[in-house]
């Protein structure tokens, strides 16, 4: 940066940056998947369609710092009574930076009793992971976690 930038301009730039950050935060609340790459967005749309994705109800449990991306323990729980009238139909997990956006999709029914699924996944890079649950009333709920990966899942030589 040049040191002779007039301070009024610098202040204005800083203000603009602050405003942008706040704006991005607001957008984030309304559309939790707003800032993610196009491939993941498209994959999410094929599952969700044009429906609104709400934030909440879903808890994605995944360690925020992972040493080895080849095996990352991951579980998703959804706050649902799991009765015939109100249950979780499906849970999908998506990622931003693996070669493919899909991670796993599971289908449950009212007789599951508890809407919780655990598995182990691969993550190629430091990225955001998103879990989306489809409820029996047709609504979609999501949770996302930013995961830092020290050693990514191997994509190169075997």
């Amino acid at each position: 940066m040049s040191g002779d930038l007039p301070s009024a301009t610098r202040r204005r730039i800083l203000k603009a940056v602050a405003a942008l950050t706040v704006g991005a935060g607001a957008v984030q609340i309304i559309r939790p998947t707003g800032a993610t790459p196009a491939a993941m967005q498209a994959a999410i749309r094929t599952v969700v369609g044009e429906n609104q994705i709400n934030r909440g109800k879903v808890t994605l449990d995944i360690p925020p710092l992972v040493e080895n991306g080849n095996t990352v323990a991951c579980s998703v729980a959804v706050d649902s009574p799991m009765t015939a009238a109100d249950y979780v139909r499906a849970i999908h997990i998506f990622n931003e930076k693996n070669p493919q956006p899909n991670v796993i999709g599971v289908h449950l029914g009212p007789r599951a009793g508890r809407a919780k699924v655990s598995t182990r996944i691969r993550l190629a890079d430091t990225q955001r992971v998103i879990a989306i649950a489809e409820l029996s009333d047709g609504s979609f709920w999501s949770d996302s976690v930013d995961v830092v990966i020290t050693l990514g899942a191997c994509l190169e030589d075997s």
Partner: protein
Amino acid sequence: MARVLVSVPAKAGRGEIIAIKALISHHMETGFRHSTTGELIPRDIITSFVCRYNGEEIFRAELFPATAANPFISFYTRATESGTIMFEWAGDNGFSATEQAAISVE
């Protein structure tokens, strides 16, 4: 035949929520890796997993290359009656594996 390990409680009370775990040995080759000679290693993964309780489907999963090798899945169901819980995996290159476990409900 791939090695399979499932965990189902042998006994459960009627209506009790039970945890089911299923593990299968499979390398889940992603199809994105190259061999030392530079050729793409073709994809070879398990693509679907189904669990049935006395014939009724209680859980189904679609797997992608992002599922770790030796896929492990755990989930819950309600023990309704004594019987058999069937597990079925299917994947690329005609891969197929099944396993079953008995449960007695009092």
